[in-house]
């Protein structure tokens, strides 16, 4: 029973934390441009030498 007093708040707290993170991510616009994020990984950095090929 004493274990529950500790574990239940922890479980709820973690859930609340996840929920808060999701709300933050939505407000911050993390889901605005999902296709763009996938494409941006392919962009070379501007000042890097673009000629370098594997």
């Amino acid at each position, binding site marked *: 029973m004493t274990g529950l007093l500790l574990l239940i708040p922890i479980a709820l707290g973690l859930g609340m934390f996840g929920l808060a993170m999701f709300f933050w991510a939505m407000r911050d616009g993390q889901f*605005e441009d*999902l296709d763009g994020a996938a494409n941006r990984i392919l962009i070379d950095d*501007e000042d890097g030498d673009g000629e370098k090929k594997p």
Partner: protein
Amino acid sequence: MNASAPIKTASTHEPSGDAVDTRFTVPGMRCAGCIAKIERGLSKIDGVEAARVNFSAKRVAVHHHPALDDAVLVDALRKLGFEAQPVLANPLAKDDQETRQLLRALAVAGFGMMNIMLLSVSVWSGAGGVTRDLFHWLSALIALPVVAYSGRPFFSSALMALRYRRTNMDVPISIGVLLATALSVYETFIGGEHAYFDGAVMLLFFLLAGRALDATMRGRTRDGIGALLGRMGRSASVVQPDGSTRQTKVDDIQPGMMMIVAAGEALAADGVVEQGFGSIDNSMLTGESTPEPVSIGSTVHAGATNLFGPIHVRVTAVRDETAIAEIARLMDEAGQSRSRYVRIADRASRLYAPAVHSLAALAFVGWMIAGAGWHQSLVIAIAVLIITCPCAMGLAVPAAQVVASNTLIKHGLLVKDGSALERLAEVDVAIFDKTGTLTLGEPRVDVADLSETDRSIALALSQTSRHPISRGITKSLLAAGVSPSVLKNVSETPGSGIAGECAGTPVFLGRPADAGEQMEVELRVGEEGSRLALSDPLRTDVAETIDELRGCNIDAAILSGDASQAVAQVATELGLDAQGSFEPRDKLAEIERIKSEGHLPLMVGDGLNDGPALAAAHASIAPGTASDASQQAADAVFIGERLMPVALAIRVARSTMRIVRQNFTFAIGYNVLAVPLALAGLVTPLIAAVAMSLSSLVVVANSLRLSRSIR
């Protein structure tokens, strides 16, 4: 990490606190290279602090100094190789808000469901006494705020329906959830054995998942269509009494005012040309791509685009009196019938809701008569409500439609909403417009006869002009893999052509001196001249598409505003029935006639003259090059040069409806099994939870099958 940080400019100017944001839609971006090109190109402009591309919405947001004009940025984008249009602050904000609201509600319901389930499982597995009571109290503590927050979309919709003395799917849902919660709170109070918090919250979660899917589907396609929209004149430079000009909003323009329309600008009102000459692109009104020459005294209509040097136009009609507004009125009236269309889920719920309510009421009365006592009778009645709550039904339609619409997006077709998919599946006759729909709607040239250097010169000349014919030539040449040569002193003469110099030789591309009936352009290099015939070719896969439609038992016909002769030629080529010289009103009348014969017509058209017919038809599709109004009126928009997406849309819509019907059959079958259990009073919270999740999972899995059945 580099994906989320805005790319800062390397320019040296001071960052100013009062910089403004402007958004542009750039439909042409396709790859990572485009993102980099746009962001870097724009950042180099003086006054631009940052540029950020949203690839999904095909938009770029520019953070810049207020003194920097939109036109400069549009011009810069064109130099980078992208057509762009400024967009209003955030026209889609409201719909976006709704989707976000649903997603938040879904997240909260998900959180509540998991935590309550955690507590419920231990109760089911035998926790008793104080532990059970404590867990019930904790569940109540979580469930009450969750139901209050996540249930709002359903409660407000149900209230709305009840206020108009109607019933929809949300009424049984709301009653079920509220009663289950209330009963569970009572049970918790008296330390009873069963609490249904898990069932109530889980129900909300699954139903919200369906709603959120539906809203995201609408949002995604609207983003795509929004990227294509926004070409109509919303303001004009009006000459003031003191001779200066001022940008005036459409609403403030009065008849008698003089507006100056620059090259490339769309007219904001009807009027008569008083100064200047050139040609205008009337394709927005007529769907006809050939520019129309105008000079002093010509009448011009709002919505047309001025192609050459500035013209002065005396305004004769504004807003509601313009020719465009007349068509808009016709469209408005024609669209009425479509708004009366009842979606399949609502049709199902009309039968379903009364059945469920009377079953629950019967269960209560029956057990009372059997002498079970009011408490047990009420528990059983609520169990009936929970178990029959249309969990699977709420997912049956959106799950299948989202899968279908995502598949169609990949094939270049944007369907606006689920209702459009349902109506597309029902059509049995297809009516096509000719110009711009069966044909590409822009002139193309045959470049096979030209030498390599001539081609390069022609491309170098044509790409400097925004004239539709030049654009057509540019596209034909680019398609042939030509790269432009370097020219000097390029200049464009309205009504004549483009001249320049290539390595000392004068070159010219434009209207031949002896221009006849035949549409031709002349290319002169030095003394040598060659002729290029212009044509508006049929889309390459028109014949296949018509065949495919026949395979779906849909007959096609052509209904065009063009001269009957030109239409007849295309019709014989394709073996279709055709009628020409139709006014917008005639097209509308023809659609109404087909409907009155009991057919459900599909209209495919692009021009504003097709607008009323598009709005009146049972379902409609417009190409991505269509006028704004037509895209608004159409249920779906297809992108690219192929017509096949039209046939694909019908095929996919039909298989979607097949899946939807299977889902419904399953949901009803599930109820047939579950309701007797509930009526017998055998449903515990555990059984309710398992049955609910199982039925929802089966429906979603069945819908996912759809993506595999469509190639």
